[in-house]
Structures are given as C-alpha cells and as structure tokens.
C-alpha cells in the first residue's frame, strides 16, 4: 500500500481537483442555509445552487430548468429509466423500455426492475465493435416505446455510440419515446452539447471528471413526463425530493468549467498518451489483443485489451502490488469481478474475456505514467500467463 502509484483507472473515479475542493470549501465559509428557506443564508444557498445549475446547463447546451441534481450517475440512470416507465404505466397502462446490450449496470438493473413492474423491456444488440445495431433498433422501435437507453460511451471499452443516428431513428419510428443517454463516462472528453443535443435525457456523474463523489445530474427535456423516485419536499420541480447538496453542486459546476476549458487540448494529449501506451504494450506482448477493432470511435483515455492465457483477477493483484492501477471490469456486490456482459454482447470469446484489462487515462496522466506501465505490465503479465 506504500510505493509509487501509477493511476490508470480514471474511468472508475478521478481525483478531486484542487480548484473544486477550494470552491466547495468556500461554500461553507459563510452561513449556508437550506435553499428552500427565505432568510439570507437560504437565499445564498439558493443562489449558489442556481449558479451551479446554470453551469451544468451550459455544459450540456440545455435550459437550466431541465437540470435535476442527483446523488450521482446511478441515481440519474434510475430516474431516467424508471421515471418515464412508471409514469407511462400509470397513465397508459403499459410501457416499453429499450436498452442497449452494453449499458452500465445502473441502467441495466433499472431496466430489470422495470421489467418486474410489468414494463416490457427489450435488449438492443450490438455488433462486434460494441456499436448499437441500428437496423435492429429500427425494427424494434414502435409507437409503444417509452424510453430508449443508449449510453454515449461505454465504461469498459470506451466505444462511442452513434447517438445522432439513434435519435433520428427514434424520432422516426417512436415519436413519443424519450431517448436517454448515460453520458457518465463520456463527460470528460465528449462535447455533449453537440453530441447529445437531440437527446431527451442525459446522465452525469461528478466524480468522473474531478468533482466530488455522491453528486450528479440528469438533464430532462420538458417533453418527458416522469415519476420521481424520491418523494418528499418536492425539490427540483417535483422531480427529485431531498435538500439539494449545494456544496457538491458547486463542486460539480467548478469541475465542469475546468473540463470545458481544457477539453480539446486534453483529448489530444490523452489520446496520444493512450496510443503510446497501446503501441508500447502490444509491441512486447504479442498475445495481448485490442478488444475494440481499429477504426471504431473510442474515448481518448480508454485502452481495452484481452490478454490470452492470463486471469485478470491475478493480473490485477500483481499489478496492484506494483502500484499500477487499472481495472478488469464490473464488480458484483461482494467486490468480486463479474463476467463482462459488455464483452459477451460483443461476442468476445469467453476464454479471452477472462484476460480483460482496462486502462483509462485522464487529464492529469503523464508520460511517466505511460513509461512505467510499459516497463512493468508486460513482465507481470508474462509471469502469470498459462500457455496450457
């Protein structure tokens, strides 16, 4: 637990940026009331919250009234899937939810829960690259559809979905349906204002872009009718009750400002580092395979490999011992790695999927980090490789 750390797991979480910590601390420097009160500290809290909301709205190119603060990406996903579905069940007696086969468990499990409530849930297949099958989407869409959930970019592979095509398809075939995109992973690098412009609901999680854990947002277009998941004081225009976490919202807004300022440069810088890492590893580890075929759009920081003959659980323990921080996939409740449904949906051979390794670089990744990974990973992996 003591040596130097080479952190290449930004897709899991990112460090709180100093400017963000400062912004959040400053919130408590003077009296902060509950935003729903009427006295000066409450007014101050309200103003800070609304400033933060404006910032999030600007980041997404949307109206501030569309922004609902949540406790994170998971809550945003739950609200986006179950909110409209429940509303439809109540008003129309039926609801249909379509989810891509590669969604994050927050979306996947929300859809499953919707299924238990009587919602008709369908899975949208992806191709070998993990890209949504637009023909299958077209065939599955109908006027009965309530929500179509396709993430902006995948958390495991980094693959970026053709959102504009998805939206176009939905508008054509299911004009009453709402499109939800889980943009949690994409937020640090993708210009969501452009890419998610036509989307009805967008989910964000602050700790993926240097903000605090425990806060996020769901942008909800005014055309979407949704039932809240949290009942109480009716905050966030009845969409999400509970005293808003003003300091965290301020933190998230500060983080988003930093992202916007540096996004273009960071994307280039990070993708170059990622490409150098990829070349460096693949040159000396011939039995490592890029999981995503060349030419498929991928987030700048993601490098997903499958190492033949290696067990990722063992690799993670060994790499962790060297201070190299990467990920093997999603964990279950106990913390054990689960077989990846994303890789399964992409048709990746199960034996190969056992050796899945995700590197995810961030805005503060350095050349030294990449050098260290190239120096250490191949030897560690080779020592664990079982050729039988």
């Amino acid at each position: 637990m003591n040596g130097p750390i080479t952190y290449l797991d930004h897709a899991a979480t990112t460090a709180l940026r100093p400017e963000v910590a400062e912004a959040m601390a400053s919130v408590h420097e003077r009296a902060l009331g509950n935003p729903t009160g009427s006295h000066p500290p409450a007014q101050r809290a309200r103003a800070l919250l609304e400033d933060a909301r404006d910032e999030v709205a600007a980041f997404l190119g949307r109206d501030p009234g569309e922004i609902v603060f949540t406790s994170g990406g998971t809550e945003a996903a739950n609200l986006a899937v179950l909110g409209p579905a429940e509303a439809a069940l109540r008003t129309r007696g039926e609801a249909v939810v379509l989810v891509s086969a590669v969604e994050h468990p927050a979306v996947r499990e929300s859809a499953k829960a919707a299924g238990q409530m009587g919602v008709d849930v369908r899975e949208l297949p992806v191709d070998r690259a993990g890209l949504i099958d637009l023909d299958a989407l077209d065939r599955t869409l109908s006027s009965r559809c309530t929500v179509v959930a396709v993430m902006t970019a995948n958390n495991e592979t980094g693959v970026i979905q053709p959102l504009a095509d998805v939206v176009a398809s939905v508008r054509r075939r299911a004009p009453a349906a709402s499109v939800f995109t889980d943009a949690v992973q994409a937020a640090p690098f993708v210009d969501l204002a452009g890419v998610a412009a036509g989307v009805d609901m967008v989910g964000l999680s602050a700790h993926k872009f240097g903000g605090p854990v425990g806060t996020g947002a769901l942008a909800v277009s005014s055309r979407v009718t949704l039932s809240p998941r949290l009942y109480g004081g009716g905050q966030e225009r009845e969409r999400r009750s509970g005293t808003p976490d003003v300091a965290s919202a301020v933190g998230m807004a500060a983080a988003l400002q930093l992202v916007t300022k540096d996004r273009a440069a960071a994307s280039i810088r990070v993708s170059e580092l990622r490409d150098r890492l990829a070349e460096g590893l693949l040159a000396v580890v011939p039995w490592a395979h890029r999981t995503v075929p060349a030419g498929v759009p991928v987030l700048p920081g993601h490098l997903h490999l499958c190492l033949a003959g290696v067990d990722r659980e063992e690799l993670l323990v060994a790499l962790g011992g060297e201070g190299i921080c990467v990920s093997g996939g999603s964990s279950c409740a106990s913390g054990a790695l689960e077989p990846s449904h994303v890789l399964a949906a992409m048709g990746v051979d199960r034996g190969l999927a056992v050796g899945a390794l995700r590197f995810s670089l961030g805005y503060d990744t350095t050349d030294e980090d990449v050098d260290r990974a190239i120096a250490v990973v191949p030897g560690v992996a080779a020592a664990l490789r079982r050729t039988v």
Partner: protein
Amino acid sequence: MRVLVAMSGGVDSSVAAALLVGQGHEVVGATLKLWGGESDSGCCSVADVEDARRVAQQLGIDHHVFNLTEDFDRHVVTPYVGEHAVGRTPNPCIECNRTMKFDRLLHRSERLGFDRLATGHHARVAQIPGGPHSLRRGVDDAKDQSYVLSMLGQSELARVFFPVGEITKNEVRAHARRLGLRTATKPDSQDVCFIGSAEGRQGFLAGRLDLHAGDVVDAAGNPAGTVEAVELVTVGQRRGMGHGGDGKRRYVTHVDVTARRVTVGGADAVARSSVFLPGDSVTWVDGSLTGAAVRAVAQVSAHGRPIPCTVDADDERGGLAIRFETAQRPVAPGQTVALYDADDPDAVIGAGVAA
C-alpha cells in the same frame, strides 16, 4: 514469508490471518466468491465478504475477492447433484477443499508469488527436519477438521499453514476479542455453504434433479412403506424408516435408485465390517501402502468417532479394503474415509472415498 490467507469471514480464518501478521509474515487476505446464489449459511455471502474485508483492514493487510463461481459450479455443485442422482452421498466441503482451496487457490497463490497459503482450518502441519510433511488433528478435539483435509499430500502440505490448529476454539475467540476483530463473536457457519437453511438439501436438489418417490421393502421383498425421494436416502439411514414387525428399529441396507427401491433391515442386517475404497479415490499423505495389512484408525464423518481398523490392498478390485475391528453402520457410497496412524492417532495417513 509471503502468505495468502483464505478468509471466509469467520472467526477462525480471521484469527489465522492475525496470528500470521503477528508472526511477522507479509500477509494478504483473499475471500473466495464461490456461490452466486442466496446463502444464509454464514459463509460466502456478501455480508461475510464484508466481514473478511473489514478484519483485513483492521489487521492492516490487503484484501481481494476472487470470483471462482464457475469452477465451483463445475467441480463442486454439479458433481454434488450428479452424485445424488445415482444414489451416492457426496461431501461437497471435501470436494471444495480438494478442487478449489488446495488446487485452484493454491496454484493461484503460487503464481502470485506467495510462499504459503493459509486457512482457518483446525488442523496441524508438521515436518521432521529434512523429512516428509505430516498432517495432524488440531489441538482442539471437538473442532478438529483433519477429516476434511485428509486428501492432501506432500505437495500441498509443503505449501500450507493452518495457524489456528495449534490453539483451541476458545483461544481463537479470546484472541479475536483481544484484537477487537469484528468477527470475534460471529457464530460458526453450519452446513453446506450453497444450501440455504430454509430450502435444505431436499429443496436444493429438488430444483436441480428429478426426485422420485420409492418403495421401501424388507429383506424378503415385502412392502414396508414409501419414501418421498429415493435419491436422498442414504445406506445405513435410520431416520424415517420406522420399526420392523419385531418392534426393532429399521435401517436402510440398500438403495436402488433406478428401481426406485429402498431395502431395510434390522441393526444386525445393516452392520458392516468393511468398506472398499477404489484406487482412484485414494490419496496418501506420504508414500503408499505396501506389503502386509496395516493397522490404522478410520474416521468416516466430519466429527465421527475414530474406529480401529486394518487397511489392506484389494488387488482384485483395485483399491483398499478397510476392515473395521467392530461392525459399523455402512459408510454411504460417496463418503470419505480418513485414515489415521494406529500408533499416532492424531496423524493422518491417507483417505479414500467409499464405493
């Protein structure tokens, strides 16, 4: 040394880890996720993993969770079901030790550069300097788990530690309390980790196997009742078999799963003076049986009474013939027979599985 400790979330493995840390070893804890279904047995549920993790944190050691559910299903659960289908009575905890802990996990620990694998089992490994390793009962007779470890050989014993085998259960709990470990007062896990207390063995198997009702007959073939599930009846079983015409208790003397028939008889009919262990099921702690019949002590269940016996090679059938000094209830096919040294009854000499 670098030691990987298998931590189940129970107090024994917690204290095993603590003792090794205290001895100055470089310790890492690992909890195995073996069963993906519901579990209230006190072993392997999410709560148990969290207990193990928290103890590791309290001891200042790293902790990992290994997902071995696929292998566990293949090597332990599926055979468990399959054995019942043919009327055998397997011991899944023994199979788990054989295939998962002291094979899969042991090899993983070696690949990860650990010198030893430790568990919280109540047993002892000893070594005469320059000589072979021996496996011995734990000092606490009531908690001894050498039976479920009796299949281990030299290559495994050379690489394992059983720290709590050197102390009593009371001392284990006292140690845990002294260290303020979360698991100090946690009750011991009971029964098989993948069978819930509500469903029981029957409920578990009913969901995975066709269970068939069967007829009960006496030695002469006369009807003597029925059973709900012939696959769940064990040779030697007394429960549910009632009494014979002579007023004496009845025992299962034979189970024919295909014919769906259970035969019962009195105590004398069910008494057996020997059991055959097929050669491919036999393991030795060190060396193997040669020459004349060897005196030994047999144990045929986890906390069963030790039974004086002789061990002989049965070349005709290819295996070992274990002859008991006094007649016993039959050892059900599929049950492990652990053998101990007649002159040193704490020392395991080998094991086999009843045919």
